[in-house]
């Protein structure tokens, strides 16, 4: 029991020493790329366009031409997002998720599949996953902003 308490105290001291080391180095930790409002806006726009096309396909109101144009536009948008995501360090998850999103649109396009709800669930789930990444980054940026404000007001 005493040995356990002493090990725990030693771990706390080590953690504290590590954090003070970081502190004295004048750095905060960066584990994930910062929030990018432009990426978030483009992703939201792509999601709206996708959902609109899904509704039209479900109601059999989407022509073959419109469908092919939608897939081409969507793949172009994803490529542009990948270029932008590559400009940030610590952005591996977003880049990999965008690769997967391109695969989802590509698979539907190659199959000449109608973007009905039944056929696009994987695609829509991937869009939601990317949105969650933006939500996490945004929360983190708001939090960091709060910390910086507290530090400068001292």
């Amino acid at each position, binding site marked *: 029991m005493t040995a356990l308490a002493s090990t725990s105290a030693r771990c706390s001291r080590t953690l504290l020493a590590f954090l003070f080391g970081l502190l004295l180095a004048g750095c905060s930790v960066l584990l994930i790329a910062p929030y990018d409002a432009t990426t978030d806006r483009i992703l939201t726009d792509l999601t709206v366009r996708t959902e609109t096309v899904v509704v039209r396909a479900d109601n059999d109101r989407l022509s073959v031409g419109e469908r092919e144009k939608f897939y081409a536009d969507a793949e172009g948008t994803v490529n542009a997002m990948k270029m932008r995501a590559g400009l940030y360090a610590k952005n591996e998850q977003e880049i990999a998720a965008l690769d997967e999103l391109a695969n989802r649109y590509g698979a539907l396009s190659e199959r000449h*599949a109608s973007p009905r709800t039944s056929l696009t669930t994987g695609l829509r789930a991937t869009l939601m996953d990317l949105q969650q990444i933006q939500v996490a980054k945004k929360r983190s940026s708001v939090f960091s902003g709060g910390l910086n404000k507290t530090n400068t007001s001292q």
Partner: protein
Amino acid sequence: MDTISLAENMLTAATGAAKGHAKDLENYLQARAKLIADGTAAIAADRLKKKITEEDAEFAFDQIRESEKTAVLAVKATSLAAAQDAINAALAVAAKALSTAIGIAIP
């Protein structure tokens, strides 16, 4: 400097910082599960109405299975953001304590 209180304050700040991400993650996982459930029902309904072929149904379910890779990425990114905020919150508390103790503002 009271290191025990400092460690407690740092832990409180770190836990508080991670809580928001945990709630977001819960909401996301619930919404995702509902999307997959509705999508699976739509596959069954479209197949019964012969709006899609058997191959289409297999393709659709494969795409759902493939999408699980990005779910893992989203969870990982959220965990990283939570860890980042928790560490930085703890560091901010430590910086304040150090500033108070030595009388010099830590950037």
